[in-house]
């Protein structure tokens, strides 16, 4: 299992656009992906789950990838959150 801590850089937080990018990317991996924020852990391949976290700008999230492509998945997903979406 690969765990990475990332900070959401999009100025409005983890809103629809970055969440869309994130989920699309997560779905392209076979590893299971979970995202934890503020003590709540959700399925990283569900946009409803990701949005329900309500992560604000600068918010810390823990990404866990578990599976054969976990290394790449964790790295790529962390980099998506680190992009300044707007």
């Amino acid at each position, binding site marked *: 299992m690969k765990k990475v801590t990332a900070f959401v850089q999009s100025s*409005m937080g983890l809103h629809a656009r970055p969440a869309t990018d994130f989920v699309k990317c997560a779905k392209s991996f076979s590893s299971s992906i979970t995202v934890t924020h503020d003590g709540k852990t959700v399925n990283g391949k569900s946009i*409803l789950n990701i949005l329900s976290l309500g992560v604000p700008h*600068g*918010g810390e999230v823990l990404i866990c990838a578990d599976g054969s492509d976990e290394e790449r998945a964790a790295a790529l997903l962390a980099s998506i959150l680190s992009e300044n979406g707007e």
Partner: protein
Amino acid sequence: MKIDAILEIRGTGVSPGIAVGHAVKIEREADTESRSLFAPVNVNAELQRFETALKAACDALSELCQQRGGIPKKDLEIFEAQQLILEDEEFQNSVVQAIKEASLCAEVAVHDTAEKISLQFEKMQDEYFRQRAADVLDVGNRVVQILKGRTETDWRSGLTAQSIIVAEDLSPSDTVQLDKALICGLITGKGGKTAHAAILARAMGIPAVVSAGTDIDSIKNGDTLILDGSAGLAFCRPDAAMLKEYQLKLQECRMMMAEKKKMLLRLPAETKDGLQKILLMANIASPEEACVAAESGAMGIGLFRTEFLFMDRSEMPDEDVQFRAYRAAAEAMQAAPLTIRTLDIGGDKGLSYLHTEKEDNPFLGCRAIRLCLREKSLFRTHLRAILRAAIYGNVQIMFPMISSLDELRAAKSALEEAKQSLKEDGIAYAEHPLVGMMVEIPSAAIAADLFAAEVDFFSIGSNDLIQYTTAVDRMNGQIANLYDGTNPAVIRLIKMTIDAANAAKIPVCMCGEMAGDPAMTKLLLGLGLRSFSVTSSGLLAVKEMIRSTSMSDACREAERALRLPVKSVDPSFNADREECTT
């Protein structure tokens, strides 16, 4: 005047402008109607119906994602998010469960599921996330309509020219399908500034007022309506005098906007007192943008980011691929300068095919020119492509992230080596393109006089200069308020750079975000900046500011700013905070 007959409605203006037209009310059928379908069902048949409707809804959404009517692509991405909601396991499982366990028909199952999920969003603290409830309901409604065999264009057939839409709430898909030729405004009872309906209305340039409350219930279909999207006001059934007043205003507004834009394009970028002529250039990130820049009145390209060619691919773009891109930009600009910045990558923005090492402090690490000087063959290919393209236009070469004279000299000798290798290969190249550097690291700004003696021009990169001077990572939300371009230390470094350039008689430009912020224009003019490079869409705003500024005012402002901070440069920080508290 029969003032009492006029109904004044107050709401929130979310898209500016004035509209005069007639009301077209959109009333959603009551949700309870779907309850009539509450009857024993064949579970398998309902599951099948749900699946078919899901697919149809997904197809309809992908069609919506396509670019239409001048709406920026980013504003349509919400439909991509909606597609993901449709595909979402949670959503689908919950519907399937409702059909199986509660023996609900597909319509009711979808409706109830969407409602349940949207309620969770409505409970969230942040205004933005609360607004996502509307997206979930929009998705649910789309599927329900398909299940009922209805097309969603019903109300659109009632539209005629000068229609003003009156609705309790508008879903994003309602808004994006509004026909701009027929609709001149919209007013809703609910909604907020960050609702997608509001964002899309702004993108389409349709005046809009939201959260007008229950007052809109008194508007009847066909009522004459005046909408002021700037003031957040609407007048229903206005009298003749008021109507005339607003029609005049509307006409004036239209003429002024169009005229102003046309005039501004033609007018020179000079200060109000005529004392200073300013060189206005554009920042671009691809050759296609060069044409847009020229049409927007840019007198050249102050910053051509070359990173686009290198991202999103599995291997280095070869010399010819790069050459063709740079040549296309050079030809588009003709004789106007095209400043190509050499690759600014590395650190946090790694390239998969470069195998860069992971660094503890990427922004203080091996990025930009530092990386290029290590990756010799990558740099040589890059420089060769630029030198070859320089034949086809007025190309200037600019090195980013220079922090020491040694680096500058190494970069310049790499350029000479690239020329030499082209000569040996018998390939044509430009012998003497101007060579400049970004001043974006305090060490370069402080010793600007030393650097000025060895380059043909400076370009101030304000984003990094602020970040490195104040030791503030501008992406770090916790300290975003410290990222301040008006910090007197930053202003002094900018001044030192401009003064050193002037003393060495070389041009100096600014290409960071500060250059494109009209609130900073006066100050920068006062500091002695005569050349600005900003995004094409921001050119006119800066030009307008230059034309309304007199140099004596500008100098006074600069004098003060060297001592005291003027205002925060990053408005997004404060805006974010405000939105959270509402």
